[in-house]
């Protein structure tokens, strides 16, 4: 009885629409004819889908560990600094920068005639020993993914540092002090005390990093458009383009596939935690 209002909300706003998506995944958009698993077959055999999945997972596989690792190292370095608060505030600045400004900055930096190419050209001109540098169009070469990962790290590191610092602050100082008295070195301190104590934060930071990966699509789209270089063509590009092309049936099938994958991942994680 007490669950009824909440359950009704979930029913109306989540489950029913999802069931409608599942229903549409078996119909042809336009005339709504039943096509069985044809849409799933189309999605599975679609080259753009394969490319988007591969790129999205590669981005995630590179971006998430890098973000978590860099922010953890920074938080450990900042942990005992007096200027910690000010430094952390400064690191949060990229989060406050509007997406449009960020994109503009990125373009100024990575354009073929941008700052990075300019500096590298100057350096190669000055140092005769180095080979001549040819300007790179970063967003239209394999470098595109590196650019996207760098901008992702730049934008999100500060926030993740705060989360790690919160986790570190929650660790009991006495345990670390006792370990130091007992002669534990830094590595032992990290391995036996800090790392196990941060397991809760690890999960939170990991989940948020994955979410931020999906949220960073906006910047990628703004800087490279609907059809970017093939290394930065993600699942969101595919969904957006399909929506513009009225491919609602394929979108529904893709949504169901993605939901199933996420469900399996969640169940595996849950099992592992248990």
């Amino acid at each position, binding site marked *: *009885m007490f669950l009824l209002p909440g359950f009704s909300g979930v029913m109306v706003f989540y489950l029913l629409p999802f069931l409608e998506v599942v229903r549409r995944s078996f119909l042809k958009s*336009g005339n709504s004819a039943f096509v069985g698993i044809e849409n799933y077959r189309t999605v599975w055999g679609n*080259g753009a889908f394969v490319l988007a999945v591969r790129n999205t997972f590669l981005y995630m596989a590179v971006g998430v560990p890098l973000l978590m690792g860099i922010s953890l190292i920074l938080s450990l370095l900042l942990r005992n600094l007096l200027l910690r608060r000010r430094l952390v505030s400064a690191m949060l600045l990229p989060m406050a920068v509007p997406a449009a400004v960020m994109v503009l900055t990125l373009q100024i930096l990575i354009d073929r005639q941008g700052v990075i190419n300019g500096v590298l050209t100057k350096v190669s001109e000055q140092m005769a020993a180095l080979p001549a540098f040819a300007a790179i169009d970063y967003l239209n070469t394999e470098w595109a993914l590196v650019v996207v990962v760098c901008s992702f790290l730049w934008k999100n590191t500060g926030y993740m540092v705060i989360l790690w610092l919160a986790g570190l602050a929650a660790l009991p100082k006495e345990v670390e002090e006792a370990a130091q008295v007992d002669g534990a070195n830094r590595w032992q301190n990290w391995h036996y005390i800090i790392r196990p104590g941060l397991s809760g934060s690890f999960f939170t930071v990991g989940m948020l990093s994955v979410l931020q990966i999906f949220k960073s699509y906006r910047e990628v789209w703004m800087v490279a458009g609907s059809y970017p270089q*093939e290394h930065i063509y993600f699942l969101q590009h*595919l969904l957006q*383009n399909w929506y513009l092309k009225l*491919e609602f049936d394929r979108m529904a099938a893709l949504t169901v596939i993605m939901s199933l994958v996420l469900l399996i991942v969640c169940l595996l994680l849950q099992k592992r935690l248990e």
Partner: protein
Amino acid sequence: MKKKVRVLLFIMVCVMCAAFSGCGGSQEEEIPMGRYADREVKLPPGTFDYMHPCPDGSYYLYGLDTELTYVDAQGGSKAKDRGWEKNANIHVKYEVGVADNGAAVFAYAPRFWNDEELEARWLSGDICYLYFYVDEKGEKHALEPHGEGYQKGTNLNTFAFSPEGELYAASDHAVYRVNVETGEVESLFATEKQVKSMVFMGDVMLAADDGKAYFYDRAEGKLLDGNGALDVFLSSHSSGGLVMALGDRENEQILYMGCRTGLYRYIWGGSVIEQIADGQMTALGDTQRSPRALQVLDNGAFRVMFSGNYMVEMYYDETLPARPAKELTVYSLEENGWIRYAGQLFQKEHPDVLVRYETGMDGDNAVSREDALRNLNTRLLAGDVPDVIVMDQMDIEQYADKGVLRELDGILQPYLDDGILYQNIVEGMRMTEKNKIYSVPMMVYLPLWLGEKMYLDGEDSLEDIVAGMEKARQKHPEGAILYTLYPKDVLLQTMPVCLPAWTGEDGSLDVEKLTAYYQAVRRMWEIDCAGFDDAGREAWQKNNMEWYAPEDMDMADIGFNFQYAAQQNFGETWLQLGFLMTPQVGMTGIHVTKANMAADWQEKELEDTVTYDAYTGQAGNVYWARTIVGLCEQGKEPKLAEEYMNLLLSDPMMRKWWLDKPRNHSGLTIRKDSLGDILDIDNIEFGQTMGFKDPTGVNHPNFWPTEEEKQWLYQMMEDASCCYRPGTMLEECAMEVGVRVLEGELTPEEGAKEVERKMAIAMEE
């Protein structure tokens, strides 16, 4: 306890059922009768833009180039010759104010053509408008504004005579009282913007700008308290023009206001503004015209004068339902004047139907094309389907494939059987895979080149144009050959006639042709740039941007448009590539352009020197489809939509549009008889400003196409079979990469490969 829970559950279920029972249901509702309708008022000969209403129902008509004409309450007219038209010093009359008794005041700019000193003084603001006053007897004298509150050089832009004959005027920052005999000016009050209307209610004058209403007590000489409701109304309803008039109904003074959204009334002293006629159901909603004056008549009707020599009488019709019972929804991504116009005509023919014209990108907001398409697709997904859809800049194949568009073969067949439409153009829209037609363009543009005969005589492919440019460069080492300022301009002028050749029937990209295209345009750009050093190129760009490009016009549009190019008196170029956008004015434009080019080259033999022809590019026989209309399969009013389509394809619709709007650039009509009629119309409007002086010094006030030229145009229409539609993914991609190719970032081969790579993902999708 359990019982209580059951009762509670039962009540919840009942409430939910009751709440959802109304969703999506339709109820037969009785619509009350009576609403304002309008009918056109026949105007006396002349081109009028303004009206001064008189209290007895008569009115004065005037235009900036047409003499004052008095029309009595019964509609009889006579010109009141005040002699001001004969004033030789008047170049352009900017503002006119008329009193009830026929006295008038005029503001005009001095003629400074060929007088550099005068022109410099005018541009520096040292001199301003000149004025003169003509009394009711026709006596004229110059009016020289002066006085303590008047700063020399201030232009007076708005005039109004009070019922007693006092003249009031407004500048962009103040309102003044002007003594018409002495010219003495008394500043009354300051305003935030230019006051555009002034009306008088006893001693109180109401002056309104675009965001504020000022009440001024003329007897006491002071500003009264403002009215917040009126201020809000003015700031939200003034775009597109707002007119005011006072009326006296049931012992109450009422202020009537007309604007795009409708006719409103405000009881003097009150705080409520009430709509009495919906703009969408009357001529007020016409976005092509601005209301210029409003007159309240004794019988409860109104006269509204619009820009463009058009007046309507709005009357209350008790036989019409207060709102139409049916609704026909027409959708386009961008505002399309022709489609809006058709909606108004359709509504006139079907008073029981409201034509709701919706645009995805309405100009007032920053909705991108992609956002607008996304919004439209959301609507379609939700079942909110328009009846008629204008497919310009949309992927027709996609929408047809997904069942959004309805097959049009049945509707078009009678037109094709009778040879009414250009079959080749209609067939160009046939979807090869389904062998059906889902949309049809109402107008087309045709590609043309124009230049010196010795370079291009008889040749018109892309390579020939490049070869012609090379010859021209040898003869003219300095300056521009084409009218292109930036790399994008070269691409915009050449891509439409090449793009259809780059894809096969299966949609695959022909990389070889694309490479050849990039090689050709790169060479064109190099040839064009070779005539300038960096500073010269920059000066040429700056000069053209400043003088020839209006804010709302892309430079490429100017390059496309011969008529515009001609009007702007280019002539610094040796070759023009572009599109013929209008039938008659366009043909005139070609001649003016020819004349300008020849005059600039100081060639006497115009016909032997300059020539023009169809420009085939890589594709050949290309036409640029404009106003492509389709009907929606799931539209709510399929019969009405069909009728609407028939109206669009009708001769009166196409002809009337041209008669009313001779200067727009909608394109060449796909109806053979309409195109012929338009070319034959002997209407001064078509050629009024098309006068030009040929190299021999002979002045040609107007030009009408010769029979030979008409036949040439008809043949081009007959040959056009390859459809170009802008806004495709391939075009966007090729344009973006093309700029990089022209700027030297990529070689033509690399550019073509880059496009291929980018298109590969789109193809895979």
